[in-house]
């Protein structure tokens, strides 16, 4: 049982750490208690509320199932097929427990909904939640059963049926972005969705009265900051996925600018939203863009100091954002913050790159 949890459930949360990080940032950073309460009430009282909830939970379960189906095709997971030797009942129970391990986020959210239902005397509306739990966990058990009944011990996930009609550019930046899209698509999705939401809310709020650039500077900075999940994944790509690249004779400045350009590309989509609202001049948009870029680059450089341990990053990120907010509020020019941030990020990158203690798993 323990081995199932360590090899499969833990692997899922570890490999999707960037995605969950962003998800939590969106849920608990961007949304407040009132929004959470509103959503819970919607799920409980709207005629289609429970259908929406079921849909969202089903998507998450599909994601988990796809992970199990794919993970157990890896060569190193050959041992998992010994589970077929377990008696059916024992295996089912263990797979159900494994399914609950995967479904932890929805279990916790279900508890939250139940507590809201109890508070608002809506307990007669909660029964579908328990049906969802049973159905979705059985869904995962069936997926696991299907995989062990159909062993496939080679990893075909990287064999893409689609190939570009041109040779892949020999470009680190291109490869980095391609890797993110191929391997960390969900993190990209959540980062972009989160940043997009914050951008839209900030821009809508900006239109409600007369504000100067400080309001979007704070709001959009938060939006850009939601890309730290992607920045974290890029750190992993450089220092774990392809650690060997550190032996290549590439100057530190080139490594930094490569990183800078990759981040610059990654934050372009939400920046385009700003153009769509047509509220700022191009100069102002560029100022805000470089502010976001400098924040992300400082985060990226700081990862080298911490060796990519995400748990150590939350406090500095939050403290940094508070300091940034005060700087903007006290009218430190945005261009000065951006410029200083970019220069500082290069300095810190150069200082910490060579002394990173790489995480070993």
């Amino acid at each position, binding site marked *: 049982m323990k081995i199932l949890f360590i090899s499969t459930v833990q692997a899922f949360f570890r490999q999707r750490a960037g995605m969950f990080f962003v998800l939590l940032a969106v849920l608990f950073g961007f949304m407040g208690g009132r929004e959470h309460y509103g959503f819970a009430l919607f799920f409980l009282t709207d005629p289609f509320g429970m259908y929406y909830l079921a849909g969202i939970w089903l998507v998450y379960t599909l994601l988990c199932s796809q992970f199990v189906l794919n993970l157990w095709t890896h060569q190193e997971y050959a041992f998992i097929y010994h589970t077929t030797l377990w008696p059916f009942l024992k295996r089912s129970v263990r797979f159900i427990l494994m399914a609950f391990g995967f479904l932890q986020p929805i279990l916790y959210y279900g508890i939250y909904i139940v507590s809201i239902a109890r508070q608002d005397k809506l307990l007669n509306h909660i029964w579908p939640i328990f049906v969802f739990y049973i159905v979705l966990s059985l869904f995962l058990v069936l997926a696991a059963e299907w995989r062990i009944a159909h062993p496939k011990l080679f990893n075909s996930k990287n064999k893409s049926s689609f190939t570009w009609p041109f040779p892949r550019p020999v470009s680190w930046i291109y*490869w980095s972005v391609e890797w993110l899209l191929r391997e960390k698509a969900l993190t990209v999705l959540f980062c972009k969705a989160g940043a997009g939401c914050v951008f839209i809310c900030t821009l809508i709020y900006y239109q409600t009265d007369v504000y100067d650039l400080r309001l979007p500077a704070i709001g959009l900075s938060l939006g850009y900051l939601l890309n730290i999940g992607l920045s974290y994944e890029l750190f992993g790509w450089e220092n774990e996925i*392809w650690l060997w690249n550190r032996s290549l004779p590439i100057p530190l400045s080139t490594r930094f600018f490569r990183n800078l350009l990759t981040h610059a590309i990654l934050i372009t989509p939400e920046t385009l939203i700003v153009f769509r609202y047509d509220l700022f001049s191009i100069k102002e948009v560029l100022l805000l863009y470089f502010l976001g870029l400098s924040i992300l680059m400082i985060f990226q450089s700081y990862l080298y100091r911490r060796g990519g341990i995400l748990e150590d990053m939350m406090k500095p990120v939050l403290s940094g954002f508070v300091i940034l907010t005060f700087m903007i509020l006290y009218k430190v020019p945005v261009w000065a913050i951006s410029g200083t941030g970019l220069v500082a990020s290069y300095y810190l990158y150069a200082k910490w790159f060579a002394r990173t203690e*790489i995480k*070993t798993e």
Partner: protein
Amino acid sequence: MVLEIQNIKQRYGSLEVLDIVSWKIGYGIYWIQGENGAGKSTLFRSLAGILPCSGNIILDEKYDLKANPVDFRLRLNLGEAEPLYPSFLTPADLISFVAEAKKSPPGQAEMLIDALGINYLKHTFGSCSSGMVKKVSLALSFLGKPSVIILDEPLITIDKEAREALFGLIQQYHQNGVTFLISSHQLFQQEGLTVTESYALKNKTLIQLPHE
């Protein structure tokens, strides 16, 4: 001296893996031995600048890994024991990228591809056999104009033809002035290579072994 180590220490968290006070080697072919888990791969990765460590590593008496990171890495190549590359890339992508970074002379990459029999240039690493990935890593370790090439377990998973080609390349490069550090659990002297010295990595340091 071609390669000099001064006071290098390497640790994973609280576990100290390497503690080498001083180690110097001149031109030659060196066999680095050690039992599994002794820290050979960690030593090689530290020498190649992959794992940052304390102390100094100096190449050709002038290139310090910390002071001249680019010049150092241009002249020291590493072929890893169990190479891992991004699975969506192809050997062709990777070889051209590394050839450019290592300032490989024209035609060198093609020569190595041909010599080692790398047939699946356009297949992604995800679909390549471990032997093919190993051949690519060996080709990468010969790119450019290195003065030291480290080969960590170069013989595992490769076929007989590639093995013969590999020893041919080692002899050819060695005649051109390249020093080799080779770790292998298999004997390779019967392939015509003259080992200058043998060292064992034991108790976190390198100990010279008597000539056999």
